[in-house]
């Protein structure tokens, strides 16, 4: 079996090198190790990788200027979580053992919480790349920080827009399989009802489910037809849902949130016309974001796919600022500095942690697909009083 043997050996080598190539010796005096437990493979990889690319760009730029606060050269150690919650805990432990003083976790609440369970007792500041569930920070404790606009904030922005558009009746499509897909539409429902709208129906799906026909038939047979469907489904479920929805002749508009602001969804073309989603920012001509996009394209060789790149980049800037404020590389001091951040000038706008539950206050851009392009509707920071509790 020479062929088989060769394949296996190749796979073995790949596995061994994939996990050890980044491992380094212990840190030198002016070096700070940042551990990144992120998904290079699996369902979260399409979200983690762009965000990580942005972070790497920021850290490369900072290292060229002497490192965080111009003083601490960053050694970034990246390990693959395979989009698996248990594996995330394993690699987080390995990163801690390697001396990580700051931890970066995947774009989802569950793996971030599993990594946070390990960093919390040690006081290591932990930032999720783009996990946006507001329950995330409370579930772990004071070391855990969100970086992306929280689900309840995004949902409020979309609901405000839907109400302003004159939408009255919504159908909520959720999936209990992740915090994001389960809660975001419900936050939307709360704000929508408070502002005079009605939730006329609810449906659920299993992530990875092949067939939405039964759910769609249920929607079609509702006596009280919704004028909007709100869901936090993302790829590959969102394309499947909308393909089958439109295929069944249903033309009700579908709104979602940040996870559908991706090239895959944009690539669906006419199928997603009118779909509203959110982003961390919008590159107006002359804006900092536009300049970032150009710089990123030069750095990575391709334009940013979404706003996850800039969000990752901003994490680098936030860490730089935090180390400056802390004046040391002590994890606890860095944590306190992040938590005290107020009106920090990011690329997409002002970012504030002070006074929050460690989910940042920051602007949300509302976008709409039209003719295969994402068009900007407006950028807003929803009224804090409207945002439902996590």
């Amino acid at each position, binding site marked *: *079996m020479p*062929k*088989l043997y060769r*394949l*296996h050996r190749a*796979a073995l080598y*790949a596995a061994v090198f994939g996990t050890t190539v980044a491992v380094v010796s212990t840190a030198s005096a002016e070096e700070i190790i940042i551990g990144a437990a992120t998904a*290079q*493979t*699996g*369902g979260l*990889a*399409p979200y983690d*990788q762009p965000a990580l690319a942005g972070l790497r760009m920021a850290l490369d730029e900072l290292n060229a200027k002497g490192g965080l606060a111009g003083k601490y050269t960053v050694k970034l150690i990246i390990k693959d979580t395979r989009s698996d919650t248990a594996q995330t805990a394993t690699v987080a432990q390995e990163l801690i053992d390697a001396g990580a003083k700051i931890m970066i976790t995947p774009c989802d609440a569950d793996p971030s919480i599993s990594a946070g369970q390990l960093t919390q007792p040690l006081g290591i500041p932990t930032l999720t790349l783009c996990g946006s569930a507001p329950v995330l920070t409370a579930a772990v404790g004071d070391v855990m920080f969100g970086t992306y606009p929280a689900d309840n904030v995004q949902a409020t922005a979309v609901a405000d827009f839907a109400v302003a558009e004159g939408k009255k009746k919504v159908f909520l499509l959720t999936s*209990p399989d992740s915090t994001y897909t389960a809660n975001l539409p419900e936050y939307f429902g709360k704000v929508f009802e408070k502002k005079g709208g009605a939730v006329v129906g*609810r*449906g*659920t799906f*299993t992530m*990875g*489910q*092949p*067939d939405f*026909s*039964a*759910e769609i*038939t*249920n929607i*079609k*047979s509702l006596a009280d037809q919704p004028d909007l469907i709100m869901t936090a489904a993302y*790829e*590959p479920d969102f*394309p*499947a849902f*909308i*393909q*089958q929805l*439109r*295929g*069944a*002749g249903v033309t009700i508009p579908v709104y979602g949130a940040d996870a559908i602001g*991706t*090239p*895959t*969804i*944009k*690539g*669906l*073309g*006419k*199928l997603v016309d009118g779909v509203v989603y959110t982003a961390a920012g919008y590159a107006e001509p002359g804006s900092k974001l536009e300049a970032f996009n150009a710089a990123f394209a030069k750095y990575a060789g391709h334009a940013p*796919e979404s706003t996850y790149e800039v969000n990752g980049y901003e994490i680098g800037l936030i860490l730089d600022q935090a180390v400056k404020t802390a004046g040391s590389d002590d994890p606890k001091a860095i944590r306190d500095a992040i938590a005290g951040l107020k009106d920090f000038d990011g690329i997409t706008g002002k970012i504030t942690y002070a006074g929050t539950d460690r989910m940042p206050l920051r602007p949300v851009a509302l976008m709409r697909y039209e003719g295969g392009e994402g068009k900007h509707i407006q950028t807003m920071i929803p009224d804090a009083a409207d945002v439902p509790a996590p």
Partner: protein
Amino acid sequence: MIAQQIINAVSLGGVYALLALGLAIVFSIVGLINFAHGELMTLSGYALLAALVFGLPFPAAVLVAVSCGALAAVAMERVAFRPMRGASVTSLLLTSFAVSSLLKVVFQNGISARPQAVAMPSWMTGAFSFGDFTIGVGPSISIVVSALALIALELFLRRTVTGTAMRAAAEDFNVVRLMGIPASRIIATAFLLSGLLAGLAAMLWVAQRASVDPLMGFTPVLKAFIAAVVGGLGSLPGAVAGGFLLGIIEVLLQATLPAAVAPYRDAIVLSGVIAVLLVRPQGLIPAVRVQRS
């Protein structure tokens, strides 16, 4: 609405039946549950995408994609399973897992971890209506293609020498070899057919999902496995029956379960599977020569 849900159920069941049949054909001959069957689907999906990107007209692209699935299945047998011939059922099973994992990583690192949108022609997202209910073009195509594939396979197995030899091999492979029919040809044909079925199922799957991703083979192969076990491992009619049963139960539960219980849908389906196996341990339509892995 009931008529509508019946169409939904038949359409989903048809796809499951194609998938389960693909598994069952190989199992009936070589006693291997090929868990890399799903990756054959993924491969066909990517082939469809590539063909469309290269500007092939849609029907030609589908043809290319299905052939890719079939050829990949034959290649898979040649590279991974032929060296393992005669090995224990467990070794075969593990080999298929290895092939599956390997291909997934190749797809993720070689193509993209991100799902790729596949633009289906607009007529496929259309629907036609009779009175007050509408039938989507997608589900109708699913039903027609599944039915045609099942009929064609039946004809092949009943009316051709190779088909007859395959049916005989499923009952007693050694006697077939004593009759002078080369084992390699039978096995290669079984893989070819299973690859064809995977390719066809992939087209229906992608048409409903509008995207291809590296992990997309996982769910279908799992469903196919459940359907094949419920139907009776190694039995072709059983696989078809199991596929339809699974599709019908899934749609029925999705349609009728109250929202509070809906998240337990998969658990209920699997409990149903256990119940069926308790009553009929060999499956709905047991294979003539019963094998267990």
